């Protein structure tokens, strides 16, 4: 069966941080995990954004497991579209990009956009003075 990749953000409430969720992803569902962003602390709401790679039936089972554990999650259905032809490569978007998806090439100073790293936080959409960063619907 073909492998599939999904991007997902998990929202932990304070008392859920002790659960070894990622361990279960790996051990029970045979998923590969790439942590893109983590903001988790004891007794506070935490966020974990990951790429999950695995067989479709295992991914579905993993999401069901999250439902059973009462862990909220949001699947990334949107993505950021960079209209490169209108871009002036000023770099204003790189100031707010939390994941390093948007960076300036240090040699030719063009903007580079690594979609794999993008968290779709949409900060760049607002920060772009030329309005060439948009969210796909």
């Amino acid at each position, binding site marked *: 069966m073909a492998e599939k990749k999904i991007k997902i953000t998990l929202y932990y409430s304070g008392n859920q941080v002790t659960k070894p969720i990622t361990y279960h992803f790996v051990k029970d569902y045979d998923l590969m995990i790439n942590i893109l962003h983590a903001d988790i602390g004891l007794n506070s709401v935490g966020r974990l954004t990951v790429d999950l790679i695995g067989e479709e039936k295992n991914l579905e089972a993993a999401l069901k497991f999250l439902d059973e554990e009462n862990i909220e999650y949001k699947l990334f259905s949107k993505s950021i579209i960079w209209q490169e032809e209108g871009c*002036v*490569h*000023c*770099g*204003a978007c*790189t*100031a*707010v990009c939390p994941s390093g998806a948007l960076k*300036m090439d*240090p040699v*030719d*100073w*063009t903007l580079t956009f690594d979609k794999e790293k993008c968290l779709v936080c949409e*900060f760049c959409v*607002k*920060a772009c*003075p*030329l*309005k060439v960063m948009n969210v796909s619907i």
Partner: protein
Amino acid sequence: MVNPTHVETKGDDTMSYKSFDEINEKIKEGSAVVVTAEEITAIVAKKGAAQAAKEVDVVTTGTFGPMCSSGMFINFGHSDPPIRMSKIWLNDVPAYGGLAAVDTYIGATELSETKGMEYGGAHVIEELIAGRSVKLHAQSYGTDCYPRKEITTWVNKENINQAYLYNPRNAYQNYAAASNTSDKILYTYMGTLLPKMGNITYTTSGQLSPLLNDPFLRTIGIGTRIFLGGAEGYIAWEGTQHNPDQKRGENGVPIGLAASLAVIGDMKKMDTRYIRAGIFEKYGITLFVGIGIPIPILDEDMVLKTAVTDSDIYTNIFDYSVSDGPRPILKKVSYAELRSGSVNINGNTVPTAPLSSMKMAREIAQKLKRQILQGEFLLSQPVASLPLEGSPNRLEIRENGNG
């Protein structure tokens, strides 16, 4: 006036000074050697200043950044019956109605009355340069000689008369860098500044920037022909808040806000590749202006000045969270450090981001170089120098007008 200091080469009878006229003759003949302000660095390092000054005739510079103090004069032509426009809107953006009947000035930062911060004067300027029509609406109190009280029509660059950018403050010689030590996100003309020193922004083309390559304005003055927004333009005057008294480094390069230029150029010949409207979130509208200035290599002094690199140009990172009183300086840094991607402040590695496009600045410097090499762009000697002394006043809150 320009001070044509003659520098004599030691042990050599020939003077190494070249005049503007001599350089222009070479440009006309097609024999001028023209390089950009980045290319000159390696030439001086390899051949030495004396030889480089002999071989190179012109160094081109470029910058493409947000320059809020920009705008455009327009004359619409007279309607029948005529109107003395006293209130004017272009695509719902207010323009100035205090000039003669059908003259106006539209400022880049003026906001639309219907779209607010999504659209402004800079967008009107960009649309007109692009050749699109914009809606003109004007009102008047009516006079015997100008009886019409209202007009609504569409104008574009073909049906208006004169339309020229006159930007009171462009091409700042250097600029501050910005960070934010507060717990709040700040929305500024320096972009979005993240809390707790989450980022640093800076805006310059550094070693390629026009006035950083001629720090004492020896060759750049009133009447200097420049590349402005894709067309030929001119330096009209010192820019507002011109600040030549700014502290300088040992190399003469100012550390922070210093000289600035008022520039003028024909909008109808401009290209939207080099003039773009911009919006800074929750701050407002600005205009990205592309400017290139050719620097004649009169002598060794000028070639050394143009060989400046980002490692030799410094600025201060200011804390933009302080708005009451002078902003504290967080660190003095070189542009080489800012361009490295992060700066260490008190043990914290703070990421840096530019706001001025180095890529476009290079394109402008290269384009200007090609134009000069092809004999399409001649240098002009300034008719008067820009002031080398002075600093801007502060606006004090006064009780009355007697003080």
